[in-house]
């Protein structure tokens, strides 16, 4: 396209409107000349190739993600993800708000697993304030986080199956998740965006309602997820669609900075809870599930293993829970010392980290959020070319991105 980008032409959607860059009806190539090599490579179409937009509104992109596929018939030749449709300026908002308010802003970043996205800035602030969190609060944090991890994995199994066409496992996952989320609502007051973590502890102690629901749930923990296993694990169609798909080897995974289940599925036993322990994880016994194959099926099975490990952790936490306060005594107006802090935890998607810079005032100077989905999503461009369009969904679903975290 060599048209001058400043001329106004009639829009093809509404002939009364004049627009600068009309959506051309023949292909998705932008009307200005390519400005980078990558753009030039991507937007030159060879014979028989076509650019198709898995648009921001699509039933299977996990949130609003736009992926421009270059396809040759059914085979994907190249892939260009376009991010930013859910960008809310969270990091900038955090710069203008109190250290306490940062929790409610960072909550909706990984909205499915909100406990983790709240925990990280809180840990960074605690490092800057040199606060010791009471032990009971630490145990409650682990309990809440592991419950949230199970809820998040239940949903992952559901939408992996949904993207492949199976309608049932996601509903079973939601039944499971509903129980857990009602439990956490009894504890925190909300079902999705908990706003539970506080600098120096948590917002409220455990109450009877939460404990009774937890007790009921532990009796049949994750039984609906077991159902999903019967429907998915041995189903020939499912296995044929995910086995051998999106295979990553160790070196590529480490080079692409993958974390979490996609990394552990390639054989690298890296888990932040063991590599850089935080909270009371050093006192808890659990294994790090690892798989060797590195394909989508291995990532799926790894999530199931992690659910079992989480149940084991919850069991131990309930046995070892000490008494005590649930928040540290802190002044109302927090002024951490000027400096930098880095806090990383293991969220259901991988290593979730925050790099906080404080200049001594009551507002953070900078809060840089390293969300695992952002890094994991990069590998989609590496894994998909060569597969069919249908596999794009399978690969993306098995990497488990949450666009809230990707776009921040």
């Amino acid at each position, binding site marked *: 396209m060599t048209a001058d980008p400043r001329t106004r032409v009639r829009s*093809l*959607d509404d002939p009364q409107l004049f627009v600068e860059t009309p959506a051309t*009806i023949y292909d998705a190539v932008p009307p200005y000349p390519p400005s980078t090599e990558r753009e030039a490579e991507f937007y030159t179409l060879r014979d028989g190739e*076509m650019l*198709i937009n898995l648009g921001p509104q*699509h*039933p*299977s992109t996990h949130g609003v993600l736009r992926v421009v596929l270059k396809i040759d018939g*059914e085979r994907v030749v190249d892939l260009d993800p376009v991010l930013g449709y859910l960008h809310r300026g969270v990091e900038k908002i955090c710069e203008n708000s109190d250290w306490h308010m940062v929790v409610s802003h960072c909550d909706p970043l990984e909205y499915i697993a909100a406990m983790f996205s709240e925990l990280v800035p809180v840990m960074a602030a605690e490092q800057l304030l040199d606060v010791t969190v009471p032990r009971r609060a630490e145990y409650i944090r682990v309990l809440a986080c592991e419950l949230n991890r199970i809820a998040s994995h239940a949903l992952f199994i559901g939408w992996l*199956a*949904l*993207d*492949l*066409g*199976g*309608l*049932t496992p996601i*509903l*079973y996952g939601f*039944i499971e998740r509903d129980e857990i989320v009602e439990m956490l609502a009894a504890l925190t007051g909300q079902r999705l965006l908990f706003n539970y973590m506080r600098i120096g502890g948590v917002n409220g102690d455990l109450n009877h309602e939460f404990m009774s629901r937890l007790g009921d749930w532990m009796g049949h923990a994750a039984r609906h997820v077991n159902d999903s296993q019967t*429907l*998915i694990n041995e*189903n020939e*169609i*499912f296995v*044929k*669609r995910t086995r051998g798909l999106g295979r990553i080897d160790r070196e590529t995974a480490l080079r692409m900075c993958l974390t979490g289940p996609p990394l552990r599925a390639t054989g690298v036993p890296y888990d932040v809870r063991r590599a850089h322990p935080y909270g009371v994880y050093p006192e808890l016994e659990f294994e790090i599930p690892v798989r060797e194959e590195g394909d989508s099926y291995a990532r799926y099975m790894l999530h199931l293993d992690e659910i079992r490990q989480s149940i084991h952790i919850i069991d131990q936490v309930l046995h070892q829970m000490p008494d005590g306060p649930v928040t540290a005594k802190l002044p109302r107006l927090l002024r951490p010392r000027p400096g930098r802090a880095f806090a990383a935890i293991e969220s259901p998607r991988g290593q979730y980290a925050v790099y906080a810079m404080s200049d001594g005032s009551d507002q953070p100077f900078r809060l840089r959020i390293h969300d695992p989905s952002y890094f994991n999503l990069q590998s989609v461009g590496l894994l998909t070319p060569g597969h*069919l*369009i*249908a*596999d794009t*969904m399978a690969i993306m679903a098995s990497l488990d991105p949450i666009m809230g975290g990707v776009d921040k």
Partner: protein
Amino acid sequence: MLTRSWSRLTLAGKVVLPLVAVLGGLTALLMLGVVLGIVQPITAFLVETLSLNGGLVRFVVAALAVLLFAIPTAFIIGFLELKVIAFMNLRLGPNRVGPWGALSAAFHGFKILAKEDFTPTGADVPVFTLAPVIVFLAPVLGFLVLPFAPGLFGQDMNLAVLYFFAMSGLGVVGLIMAGWSSFNKYSLLGALRAAAQIISYEIPLTLSVVGVIMLAGTLSLNGIVLQQAGSFLDWFAFRQPLGFVIFFIAATAEGNRTPFDLSEADSEIVAGYATEYSGMRFGFFYFAEYVNVFLLSALTVVLFLGGWLAPFDLGGVLHQIGVAFDPRLDPGSLGIGLLIGLLVVPLLIIIGLAVPFWLAKPGLAFWKALIIGFLLFNVLAAGAVLLWAVASFEVVQGLLWFMAKTYAFVVILVWMRATLPRVRIDQLMGFAWKWLIPAALLNLFVTALAVVVVDAVTR
């Protein structure tokens, strides 16, 4: 008081209530006329003068009957799909709209009517408009040769099976027209996938039926059903098990049902060929899919499971246990007693049914109890008429068995949709060409060999 009640009705109520009243009045008049012997000469006169028995009129009536059958079938199957998948998902599905949510699919249909009907920019309008018509036409035309009951079929062609598969091929043309004319890459992909899929699966479909044709000796569907008469084990499903399985799998693929529904895979290419359609045009695709489901199940039943044949002889069983049922009624012999009976007996039954409700529930107005009684009376009367019809007419018996078996297979198709994920296009094609066609050919050879050998031996 009457005007106040009238003004409180909604528009629908204002239409339906007078209609019901008029219909009730006409029915009453008709019954009166039958009883008094007036109606018979009038109808005879009409048939003679207007030559209502002529070919054209019969054709129009038959076409109307087929269409009027297809649409409620689509609603029923749509409802089954919603409810059965919901139950398998451990949820309740629609349960507000009618009794147990039965009217929900019908309301989905009406809602689709109310949507905006547009053509996208750049679409090829005549082709775009005709495509849903052709897609709807294909399964509806297939109803023509389906034997619903002994003597109840549209046309007993001696090429019925061939006609049938030709009509499924017609559906492909409609899909490709839809995808191509939508001016949308998703639609194009969906249409091409659909075309490749349906064409590939036509072959195992037809090959698996050839075995049945060899055994039955005729291409006529009615003939195939009659050849399965005898006992339950004479059905072709037991004589051609491999053919049955292949046919069912290929039929699932022909109908674009999960696990082979990638042409409308709504997690990949939005709605495939139907992406740019809305309003009644989309309604046509929607109906066509459900009518196709019914058609394929019906075909499975007719070809392999004995069509309208009963698996066991109910009359014989009842005879064994000593229940004799002579359903021949002669209402004319009652004379004027019939009229009195028709007027008095229903009222008595309604009151009799209403009184327990009125007594049991305190605070229930008597007229409300009467309405409940009336509804129950209708149910009982319908049940009694049905039983009489089943006992006295072979047609009704056959029809009920046919419907039961067909809906069993419809439920199996819906069950597969609830449980199974989708296959990929290359896996789909591989499965058809590398597994189903060799299996169908194997089936064919074995059947042919068996027929020849058995023939030679018994000669």
